């Protein structure tokens, strides 16, 4: 040991200690600055879009912060006179409706008697569902009954959905009535 370098700090750097050493050495001594630097404000640079909560009937306004094609934060819409920027536990969690891994992302098909799902593409699904619907409808369609024009089928039922948008409920009612479905119900009934 030719010459003890008493400057400990120097010693560590020269000895090529592990990268962790440098981390210690380079440690910013100003805690606050270290604290803030480690976390750029999450919602900075995010796109903000107003929506209405999907849960109960109060209809609270929510702001959805999206960045890099995911939802980074959701909070109450301060402009909405219904909730003035505040929310309940469900509304505040609405971010996880998008980020939850349990979300279905592929059309799934279960064959009769099978014990598992198979992935199918949308085109196949649309085509097959339309065929099944037409098949059942044609087989059971009643144009007249006891002298009345009824144009109905009692073999197809449609249930749901109170969480669909108005435009969706309108199209669904129009489609089902158009098909002659009389078993048309949804959660308002139960």
């Amino acid at each position, binding site marked *: 040991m030719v010459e003890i370098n008493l400057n400990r700090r120097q010693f560590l750097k020269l000895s090529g200690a592990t990268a962790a050493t440098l981390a210690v050495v380079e440690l910013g001594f100003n805690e606050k600055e270290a604290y803030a630097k480690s976390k750029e404000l999450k919602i900075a640079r995010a796109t903000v*879009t*107003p929506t*209405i909560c999907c*849960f*109960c*009937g*109060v*209809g609270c306004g929510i702001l*959805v912060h999206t960045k890099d094609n995911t*939802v980074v934060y959701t909070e109450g819409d301060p402009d*909405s006179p219904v909730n003035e920027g505040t929310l309940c*536990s*469900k509304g505040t969690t609405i971010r996880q409706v*998008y980020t939850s891994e349990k979300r*279905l992302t*592929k*059309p*799934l*098909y*279960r064959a009769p*008697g099978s*014990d598992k799902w198979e992935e199918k593409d949308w085109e196949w*699904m*649309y085509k097959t569902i*339309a065929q*099944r*619907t*037409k098949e*059942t409808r044609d087989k*059971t369609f009643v144009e007249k009954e006891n002298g009345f024009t*009824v*144009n109905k089928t*009692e*073999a*197809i*039922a449609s*249930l*749901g959905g109170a*969480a*669909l*948008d*108005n*435009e*969706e*409920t*309108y*199209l*669904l*009612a*129009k489609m089902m*009535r158009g098909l*002659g479905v*009389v*078993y048309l*119900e*949804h*959660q*308002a*009934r*139960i």
Partner: protein
Amino acid sequence: MTNHWSDLQNTDCALIMGGNPAENHPISFRWLTKAQEKGGKIVSVDPRFTRTSSKADVYAQLRSGTDIAFMGGMIKYAIDNELYHKDYVVNYTNAPFILKEDYKFNDGLFSGYDEATRKYDRTTWAFETNEDGTPKQDKTLKHPRSVFQLMKQHYNRYDVDTVISVTGTPKNDYLKVCETFCATGQVGKSGTIMYAMGTTQHTVGSQNVRAFGMIQLLLGNIGLPGGGINAMRGESNVQGSTDFALLHHLLPGYVGTPTAKPQHATLADYNANETPAAGYWSNKPKFLVSMLKAWYGDNATKANDFAYDYLPKGNKNYSHINLFKAMYEGKIEGTFLFGTNPVVGGPNAGKEKEALSNLKWLVAVDLWETESAAFWQKEAGGNPAEINTEVFLLPAASSYEKDGSVSNSSRWMQYRWKAIEPKGDSLADLEIIHVLVQKLKELYKNENTAAARPFNALSWNFGEGHHPDIDLVCKEINGYDLKTGKLLPTFGALMDDGTTSSGNWIYTGFYPEEGKNRAKNRDNVDTGGGNYLNWAFAWPANRRILYNRASADLNGKPWSKEKAVIWWDAAQAKWVGNDVPDFVPIKAPSDPGGNNPFIMLKDGVGGLFAPLNEGPFPEHYEPFESPASNVFSSQELNPAVEIHEGDFNLKGDASKYPIVATTYRVTEHWQSGSMTRNQEWLSELVGHMFIELSEELAKEKGIKNKDKVIVSTARGEITAYAMVTKRFKPFIIKGEKVHHIGMPWHFGYKGYATGDTANHLTPHIGDANTTIPEYKAFLCNVRRAD
């Protein structure tokens, strides 16, 4: 709701009964807290001491299923103590109307009851009329057969002691509730009633709501700020989905569905039989024809009754319970589930799951793999090999992955913008429905069979590709003047000669001109009284407080300046104020009908006497499964209810199942739980299925807190944790101790937080008018699980 959420801050007293807003509509407490800060009172009436009760000034417990006894007693209290708003009752309700001689009520039955069909013939409930057909009236309310006197006589039987022997409410609590709420009868005060499924999910659900209507008319609270009857609806667009009639008995805009009966044989028959002579419903033909033009476009002509025949007509009750009965009996081949989970949310869910296995094919559209879509899996208790239903599970986009509008509980149609592309390959329901119809149109294109014609006639032009143009859908809903092609400014402009179209007349006016979709309005400057007229659009015609004409007296002057909404401005000769008048704007108080605030009804006045399937006055009947016999009459169950026999709906007897049970929700979960139990942050807040039971019951059954228990009814058994609590107390019913428990119904076997489904316990029986299932009161037994 007749009023709206931020209007709650104007109330002097909120009676919260059959609902738990602090947990299930939490933001309502933003406004109720503000009301409390201004001296307003909150009254919570609930079998259990809930988070709402914790904030209430007055709490009273009542046994599930005894709301009419409770309210009947309050009606008597208001009448006997003359706390009702006399001028309001005399002029704005049918109290002075006089019943014909043959109206009778005896031992729980009104006149005209046919035991065989369990139905009433309502002719004996008619009013005496003058020559011109208008009802005879005794404004002094003295006439023995006046509605007022008959009502007084009817509820004279609901004295306090009889009532509390049925409801099990401690006497001083009961009187405190009556005193506190009836104080809002004074001029200058207003009281609101907030209710939810606790009121409606009974065999007497409709009459429960009727009782609220009566007390609010007596106290003069309808049409006032901080007043009204406010149903807190459970889903973000259940109001919209009801308005757009995803219900077997309705067409969009609450126009009754034509049935396969003589009176609906043709459009003319329908119009003749279903259109009242007076009141705004007299315009019904305009609404129906405009809807037919919207649905069938040019294929709806005067010649073919505007395609009236193409509307499907049936003569059965096709509601949820009957639907599943038909499915259970194998009569239904295919079913669509759009964002719904009956295997958890439906009554007697075990039977409903069995029914699904009788289907040939099932299409489920949802954000998650729900218990209903996966009913065939081993986890659900079935054997996949034996279940031959083909299941198509389509991934749906969430609420902010698409554009669209939703109508909240207070009829505000608010727009949602798309924040992010749908996750994975999921698609918006709008697109799924649109493409399905396109595919079906292709299949039927060249056919001209009986089945093909109605469907081919359906007009469907929302753009060519897969993505429908939502703006076109909005405009079709609002409706056009077909001569000019311009959008209609108001439903006042609708015609019944096929020259106008409107997908849903009550929404007409929300899209009055190109580019002006008022659901997108975001001007949140208060336009007075906290009504925010420039924020979004409220059907009908942006009225925020319904029946607001009733907030002014016979001269058009507000009953009190504190509770003013609209008033007659003689100079301008029109109604002005803080809200769009729920009245003909230029009709002066002195004009004929100028003092009829209830413009939808024939006589223009509130119905204290209002016939429903089981009678014109709410009468207490015990639930389907009751621990005690009916004190008020020998009628045990609501006489007009449809009863299903056999194993589709087994009945439990009090001897085997002595404990009253009810179901409810918690803040942290929502409906069948598939939305919330698939989110980790909510699943950790309430992660386990539990029942709440009193310390006394727990001691009797040797159950300690956190033990696993088994709850059994005639229909099934479930396992759950025991939450032994002070917030449930035993009831004294007719001198006998009766225990009461309750449980959340969110749980199922899918998702992060799983648990047994409470609805395996609930019965398949519904209300006499709406067939809404009686989830809220049934009988069970509880035992430790080990």
